[in-house]
């Protein structure tokens, strides 16, 4: 569904990504793991067109999307839940969700809204509240719900578990799995490596802008280098 080919990108003189190859097959969950500053967020931003690649290309369903404007990429069926959630804090919960559907012209928006409220009942309770008043976990639910409102075929999640209590993290991972089972392909960036490898089919390890390792998630989880660097050295 998504292919990055020899992708390089950066910020001015900083080369954050060096010749990345990465494939996300339709229907799967793919995890991208790596330490702080490895370039994970940069991968997400390049895919969404927020940063222009210096070389290489990005294909979505066989179509080249590198160089396409961000809002058009969204309309093609990609959606990003950004790092730190980026809730519109001066707009209400309902308005945040509506903004997620801002390009849709079909008449199933209300039905989708209803579905999201079923999945996250707390959002319905708080729908008239400003986004900024929600707790971290609720904001993450809102960010995921909002991203789903555009009906993406491929959902990108950038560290959805960041800063959340363990119980809520478990919830979020469960929701990601459900979303995937309902047919949405997922590319997941995580520092919570254990969980990310558990729910993923494939995994990529990013180290200072390069893919150092990739393969089936179960194999990656057993790799001694990964165990040492990301899983605290033991099973």
């Amino acid at each position, binding site marked *: 569904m998504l292919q990055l080919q020899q992708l390089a990108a950066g910020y*001015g003189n900083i080369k954050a990504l060096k010749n990345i190859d990465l494939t996300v097959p339709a229907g799967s969950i793919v995890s991208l793991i790596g330490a702080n500053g490895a370039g994970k967020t940069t991968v997400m931003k390049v895919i*969404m067109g*927020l940063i222009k690649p210096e070389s290489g290309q990005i294909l979505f369903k066989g179509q080249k999307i590198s160089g396409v*404007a*961000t*809002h058009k990429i*969204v*309309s093609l069926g990609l*959606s*990003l839940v*950004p790092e730190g959630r*980026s809730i*519109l*804090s*001066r*707009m209400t919960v309902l*308005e945040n969700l*509506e*903004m*997620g559907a*801002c*390009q849709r012209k079909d008449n199933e928006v209300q039905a989708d809204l209803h579905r999201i409220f079923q999945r996250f009942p707390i959002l319905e309770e708080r729908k008239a509240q400003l986004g900024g008043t929600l707790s971290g976990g609720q904001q993450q639910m809102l960010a995921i719900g*909002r991203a789903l409102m*555009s009906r993406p075929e491929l959902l990108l999640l950038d560290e959805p578990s960041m800063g959340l209590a363990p119980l809520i993290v478990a919830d979020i991972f469960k929701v990601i799995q459900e979303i995937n089972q309902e047919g949405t392909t997922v590319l997941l960036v995580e520092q919570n490596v254990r969980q990310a490898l558990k729910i993923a089919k494939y995994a990529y390890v990013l180290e200072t802008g390069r893919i150092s390792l990739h393969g089936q998630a179960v194999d990656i989880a057993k790799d001694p280098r990964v165990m040492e660097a990301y899983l605290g050295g033991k099973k």
Partner: protein
Amino acid sequence: MFLQQMINGITLGSTYALIALGYTLIFGVLNIVNMAHGEIFMFGAFIGLILATTFNMSIFSALLGAMIAGAVLGYLMERLALRPLRRRKVSELAPLISTIGVSIFLESLALRLFGPQAQSFPSIYAAQLFEVGGLKISAVQIIILAISFGLMVALRFWLAKTRLGKSIRATAENIETANLLGVDTQKVIVLTVMLASALGGGAGVLVGLAFNAIEPTMGITMGFKGLAVLILGGLGNITGAMVGGLLLGIAEIFSVAYGVSSYRDAVAFGFIILLLFLRPQGIFGSKEQQGGR
């Protein structure tokens, strides 16, 4: 007496509020102060005047014409002076300087096109006076109040309820997030600048009606007042711009009414400085940094 001055103050203040709304809208999505807004306002006044006198149009058609002219100027400014500076590694100050360039250009252009002398609207509207319970209110005042409050209410409603209005608010809060949600933020920025400039152009006609003097240099003073209201109300805050504009108008009228007319601007700005001492972030401003850039 007090109530009479209050009405005069609110009338004047409502035009300031319209001007300040233009600053606020643009500040919201672009995080810059549009230094050319006063000149767009002045152009609106002249276009309205020409439509009303040379073309004998009604005041409402003249107003509409001035708003359209404002929107066109806004569009040109965005495409020619602001957009080329975006997405490029230039100083944060570059777009500000660019709008100063636009303001100088527009003022010189107005001097050439309209001449340096002050001109005025035909006085038919000012002559009609209505008396309600001892209060005098002129037809002009009624027109100004109705139009500026009408525009403000419509704008509020539009920003709160429509898809495009919400897109503007989302873009003003965080442009990258709005972009990721599928908002064509370039389009939103153009539209916002056009809308703000249309309000500015319309305010030009209203102020022209109120003061009966239109001249190419009027943009500067009015620009500073709008800017002061932007800061007074709290940067980027819509309600703040409305309330701040009304307050400034009332302060000005009262300083005239109670005998310090040659210092009206000094008193009004002194009042703003005082308020800012008490609330540095503006009346409705929040302490956090606004905008997403």
